[in-house]
């Protein structure tokens, strides 16, 4: 038996035999010990290689009322809305963390943040955070760097493994939001400018300010966490429910810290994959044009 079990890497065809025999026994498990996870098989293997195991799929939601603004004058940030957008995401993430702790997790990887608008309530938005809670494996071969406290991260299983192998651990999601109002032009100046080539300076400036404020807020969150840096930053510019004169600039990333004394070299090997991009049944293959 043990010879068979140690064989799968050298004889993948022998693994099937053991697998089918195991299925035949049809062993039931206690539902409370069964995990669920949105990790792919590759991610699950790499998470295991980093010394962790999935504990369960976790989520946090906040249905938030956004949109009422007391006043806006010219091109400026709308602080009430910036605060509301940030608060709603914080609540969703806090509930995700609560869910993760409840099932014995040590952190959450692959966190996806989304906003869904709820039907006829134009200003009712659902902020949702979903990810897989993980914890150090009980019998682990190599624990690279146990994370000190509960973390959240938008990194994939592959990213988590690579960072852990290079000597880093994630500290937490960091984000910055800025809702900005771009001033309307007066009808007179609009009419005057229609025939000219010109930069819309106030719109450009508004974008700059919004970006600057959002990125600064994200950065100060990283400083508070004591991070070495922020990776996997994504930025988003959206008007949500407000119309084209209001935008939210949103920056999201994972703060990481170098756990060992220095970055560990990964020993990267260059490779040339023998994968064709041409698919025989694709009509563009006949014309010689390359397919994506």
């Amino acid at each position, binding site marked *: 038996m043990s010879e068979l079990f140690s064989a799968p890497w050298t004889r993948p*065809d022998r693994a099937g035999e053991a*697998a089918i025999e195991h299925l035949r026994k049809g062993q039931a498990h206690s539902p409370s010990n069964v995990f669920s996870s949105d990790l792919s098989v590759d991610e*699950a293997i790499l998470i*295991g290689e980093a010394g962790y195991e999935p504990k369960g799929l976790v989520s946090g939601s906040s249905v*938030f009322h956004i949109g009422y603004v007391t006043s806006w004058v010219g091109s400026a940030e709308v602080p009430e809305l910036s605060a509301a957008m940030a608060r709603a995401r914080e609540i969703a993430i806090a509930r995700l963390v609560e869910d993760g702790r409840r099932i014995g997790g040590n952190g959450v990887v692959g966190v996806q943040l989304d906003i869904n608008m709820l*039907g006829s*309530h134009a200003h009712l938005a659902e902020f949702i955070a979903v990810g897989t809670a993980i914890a150090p494996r009980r019998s682990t071969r190599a624990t690279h760097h146990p994370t000190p406290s509960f973390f959240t991260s938008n990194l994939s299983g592959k990213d988590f493994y690579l960072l852990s*192998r290079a000597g880093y651990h994630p500290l937490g999601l960091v984000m910055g939001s800025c809702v900005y109002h771009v001033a309307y032009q007066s009808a007179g100046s609009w009419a005057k400018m229609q025939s000219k080539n010109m930069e819309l300076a106030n719109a450009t400036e508004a974008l700059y300010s919004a970006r600057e404020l959002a990125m600064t807020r994200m950065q100060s969150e990283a400083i508070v966490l004591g991070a070495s840096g922020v990776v996997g930053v994504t930025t988003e510019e959206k008007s949500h429910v407000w119309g084209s004169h209001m935008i939210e600039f949103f920056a999201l990333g994972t703060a990481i810290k170098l756990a060992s004394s220095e970055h560990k070299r990964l020993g990267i090997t260059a490779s040339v994959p023998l994968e064709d991009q041409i698919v025989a049944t694709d009509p563009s293959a006949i014309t010689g044009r390359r397919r994506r």
Partner: protein
Amino acid sequence: MAIEQGRPWSSDLSAAELAILRESGFEPVGLVMGSSVYQLGVQSQMGASLSSSWRGYGPGNSPTGGAAYAVEYPCPHGYFAGGLDHYSGFNWERTDVEAGLTEAYYLARSRMEQEAKDNAAHGVVGVHLTLRPVGGMWHVLEFTMIGTAVRREGSAPLDAPFSSNLSVQDFAKLLVTGYVPADFVIGVGVVQASGGCGLEYQLRSWNDQDITQFSDAIQESRRQATRHLEHEGSRRGEGVIGVEMRFSSFELGERVRYIQTIAVGTSVLRFAEVPLPNPPLILMPLVDRDANEGLQ
């Protein structure tokens, strides 16, 4: 449909998948399918009277055996004594809808598995699930599953073949790391939220704030879906991976929301403790510039 011995098999496998399947000691048997068109018996309960009749069919029992989720949100102003403008809100789990959706899913899956069994297959890989409303009615649904049945030469047939939505590559990776896919499982969480006066006041407020009752309903719908998925996975597995969630929410009436989460994934069973022989090699592929990566 029984597939004649000696006739060529059909499959939706790619050439690479076929190569990996044969390398793992399995062979394709044929495409198998299972389908069910199902009506959820809930239409009569969709009226406006619903908001106050939750006790009528009550919290009931969850499909997993435990008590279903049900919470009352009393009037926060303390006037709830039959006053016209003050009333409680309720969140409750629609166990009837959950049971219906789950049954329809398993009808389709069992038909697909029966086809696989009829052809002496050990399991089905790469199952695609189609779930769509029929005739524009949200409560009539078609569940269809299609996948490639596979067999391992020399192993006795299984009473219950395995099924999985994973690709053959993933199937092979599981096998060599000591896991086998068990079942393609579903978890459904449906919560109905009927707002009380507390919610009504929150919605009219000028403050941007968290609408607790709706947040709770959505959170609970996802939590129940995950819990049911894990329960289904426990029949023959120790974990469910590759979970995909589908979320929908709509209004049934004023202040009444219907919130549904459907989660599917493959339960897996460990048959051996097999660590990777070496740390994975870190590769940097040198590839051509993608022709499509220009200005868009």
